[in-house]
C-alpha cells in the first residue's frame, strides 16, 4: 500500500491544475533533481558519497539473530553492528536493545530531558512536495508574521517558561528572505537562551549571517535519502534539488553553527535504508567536524489539511522504537529529538530509553500561540498548520509529566559564545 498524495483544490486555475497534473504524471516535465539551480553553492565534500555507498550496499535481509546478538555483545557498536540492529532480524530483540540504549543514554545524558518549542513564522512555500501541508498547491490559509507579531508570539512562549526555540518557515526565499529570518533570530535572542532554525537550506555565507543574528543550531530533514524516490515526491521548486539539501548541514557548520540536526521523514521510502543513511550522515560529518554537536530526529508521515489519509505505512511504533534504540546504541553521544507527531504514551516511553529532547506547547500553525496558550480568541488572522500534531501537551504539563516519569527536565544547557 502506498499513500495517495495527490489532491486537487477547487480553487486552482485550469492552467495551474494542468501544470500540477503534468508534474505529477510526466517525469520529463520535471527538472533534474540532481542538478543545482542558480545561486546554489556547491561545496567540495566526500560525505555524500561515503554515506550513499553504505546505503547502496545495505541488504538488511541478510542479517540474522546471530548478528544481532553479536552486535549487542560488542562494547563499541560498529557500522556492521548498527546495520544488524536496524534489520528485521533485530525486532524480536527490541527489549534487549532498549536496555542497552537506556544504559548508553544514561551514560551520556544522565536522566535529563530537554524541552523546546517550535515557532512557525511563515507558511508560504514555493515547492510542491506532495506529502506536506504547506505545499504550494494545497489550499490553506497562508501567512507571514510581521516582526511585531513575532515579538508578540515569542513573548507568550517565553512567559510560559520555555528557553529554547526552533524557528521554522515554509520554504520560500521570496516570502521569507534570509534577512527576514535573521531579524526573527535577533528578536528570539531577547527572549530565549537557545535559537535553532528549521528553514530552507541556504549557502555558507547565509548560514554565517544567521549565526551572527543569534541562531546556533540548524535542522534540515533530507526527507528521503533515496534520490529516485525523492524525485517523485518533490515535484517542483528549490527543494527538488536533492544534493544541495544533502550538504546543508555541512554548509551550516562551515558557516559557524554550533550544531546540526538530521532526519529522514520515515514512511516516504524504505525506512531502514533511510534510518541507516541518516545515522551515517551524522557519523561521517562528526568525524569531519568533531567539535560539532549533532542530533537526530525521527519524524513519521502525518495527516495534513485536505488529506487526512496520509500515514507512515510500515513504520509502526515498534519499528520507530527499534530505529531509535539502534541510533542510540550506534551514536551514544548524539541528541535524539522526538516531536509532537508522536503520541503522549510513545513519548513518555521513549524518553526513558533513547530520546533526549521533546517539544511541548506545540503549534505548527502561524500566529496562533496566543489562542492556543491562553484560550483567548485571537483578533488577528492565523495561518494553517503544516501537519496534525498528536501530543498536544502544554509546557507546564510536559514539565510535570517528565518529572513524574523520574526524569529531570532541562530548559537550557547552552551558552551563545
Amino acid at each position, binding site marked *: 500500500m502506498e499513500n495517495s498524495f495527490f489532491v486537487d483544490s477547487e480553487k486552482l486555475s485550469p492552467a495551474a491544475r494542468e501544470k500540477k497534473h503534468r508534474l505529477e504524471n510526466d517525469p520529463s516535465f520535471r527538472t533534474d533533481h540532481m542538478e543545482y539551480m542558480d545561486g546554489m553553492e556547491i561545496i567540495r565534500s566526500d560525505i555524500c558519497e561515503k554515506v550513499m555507498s553504505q546505503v547502496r550496499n545495505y541488504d538488511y535481509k541478510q542479517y540474522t539473530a546471530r548478528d544481532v546478538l553479536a552486535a549487542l555483545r560488542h562494547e563499541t557498536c560498529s557500522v556492521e553492528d548498527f546495520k544488524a540492529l536496524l534489520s528485521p532480524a533485530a525486532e524480536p530483540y527490541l527489549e534487549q536493545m532498549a536496555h542497552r540504549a537506556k544504559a548508553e543514554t544514561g*551514560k551520556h545524558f544522565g*536522566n535529563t530531558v530537554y524541552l523546546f518549542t517550535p515557532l512557525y513564522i511563515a507558511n508560504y512555500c514555493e515547492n510542491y512536495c506532495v506529502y506536506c501541508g504547506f505545499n504550494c498547491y494545497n489550499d490553506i490559509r497562508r501567512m507571514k508574521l510581521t516582526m511585531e507579531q513575532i515579538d508578540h508570539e515569542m513573548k507568550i512562549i517565553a512567559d510560559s*517558561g520555555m*528557553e529554547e526555540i526552533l524557528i521554522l518557515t515554509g520554504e520560500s526565499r521570496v516570502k521569507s528572505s534570509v534577512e527576514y529570518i535573521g531579524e526573527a533570530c535577533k528578536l528570539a535572542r531577547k527572549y530565549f537562551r537557545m535559537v535553532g532554525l528549521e528553514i530552507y537550506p541556504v549557502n555558507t555565507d547565509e548560514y554565517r549571517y544567521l549565526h551572527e543574528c543569534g541562531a546556533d543550531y540548524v535542522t534540515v530533514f533530507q526527507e528521503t535519502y533515496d534520490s529516485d524516490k525523492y524525485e517523485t515526491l518533490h515535484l517542483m521548486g528549490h527543494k527538488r534539488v536533492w544534493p544541495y539539501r544533502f550538504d546543508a548541514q555541512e554548509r551550516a557548520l562551515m558557516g559557524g553553527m554550533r550544531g546540526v540536526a538530521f532526519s529522514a521523514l520515515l514512511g516516504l521510502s524504505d525506512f531502514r535504508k533511510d534510518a541507516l543513511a541518516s545515522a551515517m550522515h551524522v557519523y561521517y560529518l*562528526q568525524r569531519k567536524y568533531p567539535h560539532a554537536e549533532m542530533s537526530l530526529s525521527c519524524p513519521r508521515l502525518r495527516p495534513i489539511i485536505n488529506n487526512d489519509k496520509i500515514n507512515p505505512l510500515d513504520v509502526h511504533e515498534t519499528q520507530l522504537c527499534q530505529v531509535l534504540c539502534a541510533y542510540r546504541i550506534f551514536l551514544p553521544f548524539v541528541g535524539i529529538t522526538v516531536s509532537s507527531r508522536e503520541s503522549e504514551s510513545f513519548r513518555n516511553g521513549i524518553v526513558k530509553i533513547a530520546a533526549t529532547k521533546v517539544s511541548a506547547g506545540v503549534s505548527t500553525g502561524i500566529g496562533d500561540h496566543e489562542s492556543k496558550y491562553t484560550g483567548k480568541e485571537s483578533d488577528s488572522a492565523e495561518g494553517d498548520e503544516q501537519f496534525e500534531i498528536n501530543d498536544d501537551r502544554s509546557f507546564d504539563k510536559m514539565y510535570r509529566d517528565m518529572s513524574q516519569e523520574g526524569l*529531570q527536565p532541562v*530548559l537550557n544547557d547552552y*551558552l551563545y*559564545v
Partner: protein
Amino acid sequence: MNDDKLILGGKAFSSRFILGSGKYSLSLIEAAVRDAGAEIITLAVRRANTKEHENILDYIPENITLLPNTSGARTAEEAVRIARLARELGCGDFVKVEIMRDSKYLLPDNNETVKATEILAKEGFVVLPYMYPDLYAARDLVNAGAAAVMPLASPIGSNKGLATKEFIQILIDEIDLPVIVDAGIGRPSQACEAMEMGAAAIMANTALATAGDLPLMAAAFKAAIEAGRKAYLAKPGRVLTRGASASDPLTGFLHN
C-alpha cells in the same frame, strides 16, 4: 591529619572530594555535601544560564565553594568568555577550564587549555584546568599560573577508573601543584588507589549519580578517599611485582 588540608588559590579545604557537574539533581548535591563531605561543587555555567525553573545555583548551599566550569567552550577564547560570565553571575574567582573540540569523547584540548589558563590566571582567577595527562602540557599549565592540574583518569562519564594511571603518576611525581584526578573514576576503590598514588583530590559525578543508593555511595567515596590519603601520608610499604626477596642480603659479604 587535621592539619592535612587541600590548598587551592590560598583557600584551605578539609575535604578531598569535589563534585563534578555532569549529571545534576538536588538529591545528588545533598548526598555529595552531607555524605561525601564535598566542600567544592562544580557547576556548568551553561546550565546555570537559565531563568527560573530548576536553576542549579539555587540548589547549592552557601558554605560551599562554587567551581564554575567552561563546558561548551571549543576554544581558549570561548572559555575565557564563559569564565568572565561566571564571575559576573557571582560564582566567585574559581574556574575549572574545560575546552573540548570533540563532541563524541569530550576529551580536553590541552593546547587551548594552556592558552585560556594563562589569560584567566592573569585576570586573578583561581584556574583549575581539566587536561589530558601529558607532562609537557602540565608543565605549561604550571607556567601559565594554574592553581592545580586536573588530569582525566579515563573518558568522562565512563566509570572505567584509572586508565591513565602511569601518566597521572608521572604528573604527581613531577608537578609541584595539587593533582586532582577528574573524570572516569567509577568506584570508591579507584578513588582510593588514586589517592594512595598521591593525588590531592578526586572529582567525580557520574559514579555517584548513577549509583543505586546515592547517599551510601557518597559515603563510600568519602571513606575511600580518606583511606587513600592516609595510606599516602603513611608511605605505603613496598609491593613486589615479581618473585620473592631473599632475606639474606646479597651484599652481606661486604660486611663480613
